[in-house]
């Protein structure tokens, strides 16, 4: 459905935000993970046709998106990390305006907006000016606008920021549900946002794609690397210099640590099954694999 071929973005001043990223994306929920500053938002903006790549190609169903973005835009839903609203319009008026910009017919837009307002629990607030909305409510307006045209490609950048914990869970379920018949590209730096719903995971660090695989593939590649042990609290600092510690939890007798190591780190450490956070840490702290190998990891 969507192909990124050697996509690179170099900003003025030489900052290489995205570096030779190649991915082929089909139906399903793709979680784009990476630390802050990894280039996730730049890649999302490129994919959402907002930013033009410096080099490389972006294809939607074989057609060049960079040269002719409207074909993708017509079927695209995009929720950026930061966005604004017209503060004097009501929630409904704002969505009605955006539906018109997207080219929806009046009657279908009206029905769709009613449903979306109910979906994001803003029906009662729909007649209030947007300037009176809280941050979480505005985020839900953003989610509603992304779904206005029932997009075939849904790109959401850090979508759960501003949602309460219960909303986060339900929103993840909604995305998982939607991903059944479309591409959902979700960018986040919070592993738990995608671990239960992603069908594929792409990890970006320093602008480069480190891995694009399934969650199972990612876990498999980390199997045998994760160890757990009870250590003295005073040993933690030294341990952190030698190993990648993924978690440390205080117990009555000391600290239970979970760390990454290809071999047993020290006597007493027991191997444990990896989770996505372990796998993520292993990937982003490894040297970048060759581009061809990166693509090859994908199952």
């Amino acid at each position: 459905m969507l192909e990124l071929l050697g996509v690179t973005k170099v900003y003025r001043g030489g900052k290489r935000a995205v570096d030779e990223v190649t991915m082929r994306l089909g139906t399903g929920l793709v979680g784009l993970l990476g630390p802050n500053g990894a280039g996730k938002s730049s890649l999302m903006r490129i994919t959402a046709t907002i930013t033009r790549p410096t080099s490389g190609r972006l294809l939607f169903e074989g057609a060049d998106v960079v040269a002719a973005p409207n074909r993708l835009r017509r079927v695209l839903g995009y929720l950026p990390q930061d966005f604004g609203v017209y503060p004097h319009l009501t929630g409904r008026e704002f969505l009605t305006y955006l539906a018109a910009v997207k080219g929806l017919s009046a009657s279908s837009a009206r029905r769709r907006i009613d449903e979306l307002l109910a979906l994001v629990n803003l029906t009662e607030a729909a007649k209030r000016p947007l300037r009176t909305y809280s941050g979480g409510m505005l985020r839900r307006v953003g989610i509603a606008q992304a779904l206005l045209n029932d997009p075939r490609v849904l790109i959401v950048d850090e979508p759960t920021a501003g949602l309460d914990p219960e909303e986060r869970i339900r929103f993840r379920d909604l995305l998982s549900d939607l991903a059944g018949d479309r591409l959902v590209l979700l960018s986040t730096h919070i592993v738990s946002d995608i671990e239960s719903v992603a069908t594929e995971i792409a990890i970006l660090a320093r602008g480069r794609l480190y891995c694009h695989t399934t969650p199972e593939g990612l876990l498999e590649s980390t199997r045998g690397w994760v160890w757990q042990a009870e250590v003295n609290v005073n040993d933690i600092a030294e341990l952190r210099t030698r190993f990648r510690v993924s978690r440390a939890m205080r117990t009555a007798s000391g600290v239970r640590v979970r760390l990454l190591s290809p071999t047993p780190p020290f006597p007493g450490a027991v191997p444990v099954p990896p989770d996505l956070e372990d796998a993520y840490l292993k990937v982003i702290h490894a040297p970048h694999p060759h581009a061809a190998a990166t693509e090859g990891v994908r199952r």
Partner: protein
Amino acid sequence: MRVLVALAVADFRERTRRLAYAVVLLAAVGLAWLAVPDPEGRWVIMNIGTYRGVYTSAYVGAVTALAGALWFLIGGFYVVRGAIPRDEQTRVGHLLATTPLSRTGYLAGKFLSNLMVLASMTAVLAVTAVVLQLLRGESRTLNPVDLVAPFVVLTFPVLAITSAAALWFDTTSRLRAGLGNIIWFFVALPAATAAQVTHAPLGGLGTSYVADSMYAAMTAQGLALDGAEFSVGLMYLDHPPTTFHWPGLEITGGMLLERMGMVLLACVLALVPAAWFGRFDPARTRYQEAAQPASSSPAGAAGPAGLPTPGGSPVLIDPGTGLALDMPQQAPSQSASFQGRPRTVPVPGWRTGRLITGELRILLKSASPWWWAGAATIAVTGLAVPVDNVPGALLAAWIWPILLWSRLGAQRVVDGVDTLLDAYPGVRPQLVAEWMAGVVLSMLTGAAPLLRFLIAQDGAGVAAWLGGALVIPSLALALGALSRGPRLFQIAYLSVWYLVVNGIAAFDYLGAVRHDGRLAGPHPLIIISLAGVLLAGALLIRTLRHVYR
């Protein structure tokens, strides 16, 4: 003091690393070019009757310094204002508010930063003056003291006043947006005129110091004054001016005291807003009403006032006593977001009408009831005035919506909606709808004068009205799309409107200037064509932004 300087320098760096600053510096070069024109040219910016001084360092310095003082008083304000709202918008203000930095310290830093920006423009003006002195070639002797002294004595105190005034506008909720730009225009113009009279308080712009000195030099050289008036401002003379030698400005102790008094006054004025400046506390200001990026606001809908305890269980706090209350049974969540899935399949359809309606809403919904009352009053006046005064009524009718027009092309950027719209299809339909909303606004506010023209069977008036109704939103859209903000249109349109009010026919875009009952300005077809060019320009700018995104 160290904190103050650090604040000012950081703010100065932030401003000078924007493209707009380079444009402003270029404008300073242009101003110097105007101030020291070709010796054979007839355009002058400072003259005494048909005389001007030989282009020595002293004269070139004085003329560029005075032109700078005049320009920076009016235009410099628009360059430096916005420092405090920018801190609010970027959230830097929230960070600063949590530091020990006091209100007066913060304002002093901003004042210093404003002053540095204007001073840097003045420095460019001075350097350009040197180049121009050498280029014009009337005197090749460079005297740095003679050249720089007028900038220090005449221009700098005016910069300080402008810098302080910008802080007043930035800290006053009603003045911090577009209304402040309009009000400053009408405050600064008469102030600039008043500041040029003899015995202006604290020397005003410093015009009288230079004028008196030049009169004295001319008298000493036996040149006939014959009531020749000293004037500063762009003028066209019938013949190239005759030159005389001016030895330069003699800086007296009294003059220095007056100018230092002006700087001191500016310093005091800059700190006065500490009395009402809210220090970015939304509870004390209207900042909260500004559009905020969705992700930076507090998370989620308001829940119960639960606080984490060491044991991990939340407690409820009595807001009156501050004591913990018994924890009630956990209430079921009121939130029911993201349940189910929309079923309606959206289909494409005709959208032009809804787009225009949406754009009209965006334009008009920010207008207060007071704005509508003002528009109604102007409309009623337009219906009541004698027919000869209808063009004047149209001028009033078409200055009133300036703040609304100025949103065209810029509002999506100002409110941050462009981050959504840039991923939407259809640049052209959006832009045309935006323009049409602006045209509807022109027609709505100009309806009463149009009715009068129609009743009076004034075909020329109707044609000129149509030109105006089309060209104003076109100009707004083009400048809004170009600058991505409302300020450029506000200043440009005010300036053109002011010229028309003063009867300058060449700028008459709405048929207000008439000679013997006939239109004295450009033909309405020219204005309509100009509207088309501006609209095309706006479209080109928006399209190019999308292409080179």
